[in-house]
């Protein structure tokens, strides 16, 4: 019953979020602020994680394909496809759920417990829309870019690490990452990025918006939000893979 209550309340909140903005100019200003806070500030962590994961995957692929019957180009292909299909979309979304999601829950939750949201409501501002809509738009907008950045730096990580570790040569790796390339994989992962971006912003916002109590409850809500967002990301990953890839 609690599950259905939360689902109902989540969609009720979304209806409020997508209500007509009071003053579009202020929302746009807020949107740029959120793009900077939630998106641009995440670029460095995305780059660092992607370089390391790209490098690690290249070494692991090389290790598991050490049998001479496999062409070495498979290492580049494996790294590329894993990055595009799963890591840079799904795994990155899980990581971002921790970083961005907890940030959103704690920010909105703190505003709730310190009556800042009540203050907006009394002024006649649609607090849900003003606080949540710019975050959703910002994250949905920035996620595809983070995906592209992640794929690029992941491949770069493999390119640097593979030859240094002595598991693959640069020409073999470059040939591998171009081998049997299906552009549809990019489209598929961009669609996933948009869906995951929506979940990463809206689910934590929901848990923050309805938090009750004090700072302890805000902390608990952040944890609950991240856990639930992760589960939903994996669930939608399964659904989208089944619908769009098979």
């Amino acid at each position, binding site marked *: 019953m609690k599950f259905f209550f939360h689902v109902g309340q989540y969609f009720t909140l979304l209806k409020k979020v997508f209500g007509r903005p*009071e*003053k579009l100019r*202020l929302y746009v200003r807020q949107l740029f602020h959120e793009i900077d806070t939630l998106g641009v500030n995440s670029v460095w962590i995305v780059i660092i994680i992607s370089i390391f994961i790209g490098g690690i995957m290249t070494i692991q692929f090389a290790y598991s394909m050490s049998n001479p019957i496999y062409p070495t180009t498979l290492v580049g292909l494996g790294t590329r496809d894993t990055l595009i299909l799963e890591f840079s979309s799904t795994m990155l979304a899980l990581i971002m759920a921790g970083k961005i999601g907890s940030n959103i829950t704690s920010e909105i939750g*703190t*505003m709730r417990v*310190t*009556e*800042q949201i*009540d*203050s907006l*409501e*009394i*002024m*006649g*501002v649609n607090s849900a829309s003003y606080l949540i809509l710019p975050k959703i738009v910002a994250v949905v907008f920035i996620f595809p870019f983070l995906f592209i950045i992640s794929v690029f730096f992941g491949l770069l990580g493999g390119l640097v690490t593979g030859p240094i570790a002595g598991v693959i040569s640069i020409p073999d790796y470059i040939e591998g990452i171009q081998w049997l390339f299906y552009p549809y994989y990019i489209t598929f992962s961009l669609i996933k990025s948009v869906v995951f971006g929506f979940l990463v912003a809206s689910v934590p916002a929901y848990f923050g918006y309805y938090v009750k109590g004090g700072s302890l409850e805000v902390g608990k809500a952040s944890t609950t939000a991240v856990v639930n967002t992760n589960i939903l990301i994996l669930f939608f990953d399964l659904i989208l893979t089944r619908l769009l890839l098979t």
Partner: protein
Amino acid sequence: MIEVKNIYKSFDGANVLKDISNRFEQGKTNLIIGRSGSGKTVLLKSILGLYDIDQGEIWYDNREFVKMHHKERKKLRREIGMVFQGGALFDSLSVEANIRFPLDMFTHQSPVEKKKRVEFCLEHVNIEKSAFKLFPSEISGGMQKRVAIARAIALNPKYLFCDEPNSGLDPETATIIDQLIQHLTREFEMTTIINTHDMNSVIEIGESVLFIAKGEVAWTGSNKEILETRNKKLNDFIFANKLYAQLREEKN
């Protein structure tokens, strides 16, 4: 003027407000007093529409709030200023930006006009220019309350609500805040409702007092009458503080 008629409100079957009726006069500081848990915050939030009441009527001058359409309520809210117990200033905005927020949101004033209005409001609550650019976390509790009052009056409201405006403040600052609210109420002819359990505020600015006990109206009157009352519940509330008991003895 705000009038409430026969208000009932319950939470999970527990009656928190029972048949509350009262008139809050314009140009006066109207106080709602009572012990913690007596229902005064629920009453204040019900009048503001943050809680939906089970039964009764709420009148803002000649406008019935309960039956109002959502859009009309939003419009009315622009005539309301609210000072929360903790100030509820927006952490991410400077003092100046906090006051400008309602102006940005609801007016079409030019940047110069907004700047003038912000300065006017902040000067009225005695905030120095050097504090305009500071953030709420960088100013004292008393200053935060004054900024909250400045934000509440930014749109020139007809109705001002204050939820325990001087809680957590030292007696001197608390008196300054009380006097400031009374001064603004008279100057701008607002209908002001203040929620408090501070007896100093009652004596200082309680032009009209509504005493609530266990969710019911137990007494109404003014600060001039309050020390003379023979109402047992009110006496228990007031004279829990020995200073006031002594004051009455001296008076008698």
